[in-house]
């Protein structure tokens, strides 16, 4: 199971890096979304896998009665999902605004903050 998940994580990373290398903003955003999922899967896998035993302590006990799945990676993944979800929402709005303002979704043409022909500073004293 770990092997399959490891290969999946690798495929996710490959896809996201390929997309993020694109010049088009939308593809970069897709890449970011996939990157977040790749990391979540990675954390989940690195916390060791165990099938079908939820880490819930029964009402009558104070400690788990048998070996359960590791709850910590689940907590970490939940935090990471919340964060990547809110960031992705922010990026969608920012990307849309950038497209409206700059009239392009090509990263190479977004040169407002760093113009192509920047004036030189005064040379010499």
């Amino acid at each position, binding site marked *: 199971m770990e092997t399959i998940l490891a290969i999946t994580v690798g495929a996710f990373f490959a896809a996201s890096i390929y997309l993020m290398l694109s010049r088009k903003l939308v593809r970069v955003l897709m890449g970011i979304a996939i990157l977040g999922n790749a990391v979540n899967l990675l954390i989940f896998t690195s916390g060791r896998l165990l099938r079908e035993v939820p880490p819930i302590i029964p009402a009558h006990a104070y400690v788990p009665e048998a070996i359960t799945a590791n709850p*910590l990676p689940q907590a970490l993944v939940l935090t990471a999902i919340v964060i990547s979800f809110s960031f992705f929402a922010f990026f969608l709005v920012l990307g849309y605004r950038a497209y409206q303002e700059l009239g392009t979704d090509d990263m190479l043409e977004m040169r407002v903050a760093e113009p192509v022909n920047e004036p030189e500073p005064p040379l010499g004293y």
Partner: protein
Amino acid sequence: MAATKTGVDIAAAMITHPTAAADWLLVAPVLLCMVGGATTLILRKNVRIQPLVGISLLALLVLTNLGLFAHVWQNGVVTMVMGQWLPPFGIAFTADALGVTLALIASIVGLLAGIYAAGSIAASERRYGFYPFLFMLLCGVSGAFLTGDIFNLYVWFEVLLISSFGLLVLGNTTLQIDGALKYALLNLIGTTLFLIATGLLYGLLGTLNMADIALKSRALGDSGPLLGISALYFLAFAMKAAAFPVNFWLPASYHTPRIVVSALFAGLLTKVGVYALLRVLVLLLPAGHNWMHGLITVVAIVTMLTGVLGALAQADVRRTIGYLVISGIGSMLAGIAVGSEVALTGAIMYAVHSILAMTALFLIFGITGKDRGTFNLRELGGMYRRAPLLSAATLILLFAAVGLPPFSGFWPKVLLVDGALAAGQGWLAGTILLASILTAITVGRIWIFAFWRGGPEGIADGTQGVETGPEAMPLQVPFTAWLPLAVLIAMIFWLGLQPEGLMQLAETGAHTLLDPTAYVQSVFGVTP
């Protein structure tokens, strides 16, 4: 509760001895920032009262950090574990000399930025959330400096990242959106790399508590996975700190927001990256630190040189200062690369100096930029005649940025060069000095063109520029602008004349990083 009924030994999982009220100072900065953020958010429509409440809460934050500082000064490293859980299970907050010093300086800079913003940020932008974002930024920064848990460090990074996005687009101009897009994308990738490394580290060691990691990674020695994780951490934090090959988001974005936001970013954000490098590479993963020694040295040298050469090539003073921030990061990396106690002391002192000096420089050019409506060096000029005191203050700051005595930039550079020479790294020491000379050329040009000469380009020298009109009037500097500047310059002066206190602090911080006994003892109670 009903533990005795079930026969479960609570003492095996939870702390049973009482927590001193003074230990609450550890979480107080973070809680106070949250309260401040919430209060200013509720008050956002009341543009008259909101800055007053914000500034008084920021002042309270500084006092709280002073209290924490005194607590750590007296008792050494202090720890509090959330919810009484025994470490390494609970999330620990651990403050050592390094973290608490930086948290204190950060809160002071936050207070000064809050005061400056009261006079410079438009009411509509205050309603849009300047103060709430400022508080959340400080919340993230204080949390990052004080936490003792590596996943918690990631969460604080995200808190400060998302509030920095909010601050960056305050004003909503095309320029800002272009800058914010690049800043946001690259910084998010940086923190995601941090998360990847943390996931792998958890898989390897099974713990997230920093003291526990420090012990287990030392026990593991030179293992391949550990070295790979260290390399990932280095890449992630180098991105946050703006080290050479991964620093192009900084000059693309730092000149776009409101000037007080630029000042905050230049002061705080990259230093959080440096702090994380110190904490993770030196304290947690010394094997990886030793292994990457050569790489860090090369990165430090190239960052110092490209930073200052980039500064030389810019016409916009804000971009020049942005590149000077990068060059300073190179100096701090040089300290990390050498890794001896002297060099790390120098790096920590340089971080403090850089926070103060870079914030103050941005604030100064905020004043001149607001007056002239431009940041282009060709169009500035004639400031000396109109504002001699401000010009003198700028000269002090620029000298401090170069590292001339008697200002705060001098001692860190002495320690860094001393540490590099003691470690037999003459090249590194030489580069630090060369970068200082090039910085002197850059800042000399800024001062001569923006302040000393008679007027903007086109006015012949010696004619004293424009004799009448608004151009000839003395520059009016509002109270909200000169007070923060005066405080920053006084601190820079004081740290140059009386560096012993800071040096002792930085030395304690560096010692705790290299020898984690005190840190581990504070978290686990006894020597394990």
